[in-house]
């Protein structure tokens, strides 16, 4: 029977939640990296035992952790236990923690500036990894979306990281600016049919696409309207919160923007709003059913000033029409006195026959639905605030 493994990143560590295909009884493992912020944990599609985790701290900076046994044991890829601590050049290892913007004349870009909160220009400064996206085909290749916004790639299992500097060097950087969470690259989507095409999204710059494997990028924000920036229809500057797609239709994208739920049917060349009858179109998460490309999920949040669900009711909204027509899903979810948020990377779906949907809250609950959202059950109720949720469907 198939199994599922839910990878949960929280403010104070990582947790792995495992179940068989019935998804009724769960085994909880953790906290891993207790006390550290775990922004993201994700498994390799090419080798489900290969997991990557972003471990970060305001005190000690960024650490990348890797597991080759499905999360039983972890190590920093640059310094595997039992191996020499120095490389052939005599220098200490430890490269896996090293994210340095590429400013070399040959491959990189000068250390550019972006707009700061007060409108002044500010140099790029590395802070943390928000999102790790392993390759579809190679367990050792993984992309990292970081704050201040840039994209890095490792092709050696997380030992060394190199910036894909064409994105930061696009030229529009002076018009990118941080959102409340910092200027983060939080979404990475690799087209499974076209390895040269990657989508990314940045708060608050917008969405970008490369069609040449990451060398050059262009903004794909036409149709977005953001009333909170000087030019609401600017080429860049939009606070995109998350983007999702269905692997069978990589040209169809769904976006939860700061305000507005959006859709593109042409790989981001243009967008139109599909917020429809949502009670509020502010939110963070958005995801797509594993088997129904027109079935999408969001969790509306009251407003940009009040980051919790409206009316004290935790409701997932599902559209079976690719947007515009939404139904609230409430069975098993608290419908009074609930004031949690669901952050942008904290929803995922499994690929079992009856699609499982999972999300984590800032109140520490991780909810699961084994019937595509019709009903929900908390797997755990009292974790630290949940930052991210990913799911692996295992044989």
């Amino acid at each position, binding site marked *: 029977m198939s199994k599922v493994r839910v990878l949960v990143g929280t403010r104070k560590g990582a947790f792995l939640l495992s179940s068989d295909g019935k998804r009724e009884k769960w085994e909880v493992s953790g906290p891993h990296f207790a006390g550290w912020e775990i922004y993201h944990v994700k498994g390799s599609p090419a080798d489900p035992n290969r997991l990557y985790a972003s471990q970060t701290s305001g005190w000690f900076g960024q650490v990348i952790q890797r597991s080759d046994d499905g999360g039983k044991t972890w190590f920093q890829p640059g*310094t595997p236990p039992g191996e020499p601590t120095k490389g052939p050049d005599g220098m200490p290892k430890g490269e896996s923690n090293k994210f340095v913007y590429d400013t070399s004349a040959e491959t990189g870009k000068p250390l550019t500036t972006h707009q700061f909160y007060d409108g002044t220009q500010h140099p790029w400064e590395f802070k943390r990894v928000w999102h790790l996206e392993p390759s579809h085909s190679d367990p050792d290749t993984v992309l990292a979306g970081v704050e201040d916004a840039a994209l890095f790639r490792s092709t050696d299992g997380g030992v060394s990281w190199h910036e894909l500097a064409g994105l930061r060097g696009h030229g529009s950087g002076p018009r990118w600016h941080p959102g409340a969470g910092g200027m983060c690259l939080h979404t990475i989507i690799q087209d499974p049919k076209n390895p040269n095409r990657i989508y990314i999204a940045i708060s608050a710059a917008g969405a970008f696409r490369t069609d040449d494997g990451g060398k050059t990028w262009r903004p794909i924000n036409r149709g977005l309207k953001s009333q909170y920036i000087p030019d609401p229809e600017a080429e860049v500057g939009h606070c995109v919160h998350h983007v999702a797609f269905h692997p069978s239709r990589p040209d169809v994208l769904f976006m939860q923007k700061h305000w507005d739920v959006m859709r593109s049917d042409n790989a981001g060349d243009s967008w139109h709003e599909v917020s429809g009858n949502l009670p509020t179109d502010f939110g963070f998460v958005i995801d797509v059913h594993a088997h129904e490309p027109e079935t999408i999920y969001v969790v509306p949040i009251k407003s940009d000033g009040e980051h919790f669900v409206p009316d004290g009711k935790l409701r997932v909204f599902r559209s079976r029409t690719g947007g515009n027509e939404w139904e609230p899903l409430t069975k098993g979810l608290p419908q009074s006195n609930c004031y949690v948020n669901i952050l942008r990377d904290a929803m995922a779906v499994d690929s079992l026959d009856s699609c499982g949907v999972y999300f984590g809250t800032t109140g520490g609950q991780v909810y699961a639905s084994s019937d595509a959202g019709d009903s929900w059950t908390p797997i755990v109720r009292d974790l630290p605030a949940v930052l991210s949720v990913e799911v692996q469907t295992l044989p």
Partner: protein
Amino acid sequence: MIRVILPPHLRTLARVSGEVELEVEGPATLRSALDALEASYPMLRGTIRDHVTQQRRPYLRFFACSEDLSHEHADFPLPDAVVAGDEPLLLVGAIAGG
């Protein structure tokens, strides 16, 4: 032999449970002590000093013999008692956050 006391999270990263003991080549300074620490425990690279600038991370402090060495130059000689191994060099995380 220099004794170094790491904050708990760095002890976990370095997979050590107590004090760390280091042999420092040449004059014992903050820089040479941290170089020796990172040579023995390379997983700590970047967690104490910035990878590029080699500056102390802002929320970490260095103390020895009841003195705050955090703002001393990297080539500041460590106190004799630290060099002799009688007193440890302490790396302390700032009290901040929750």
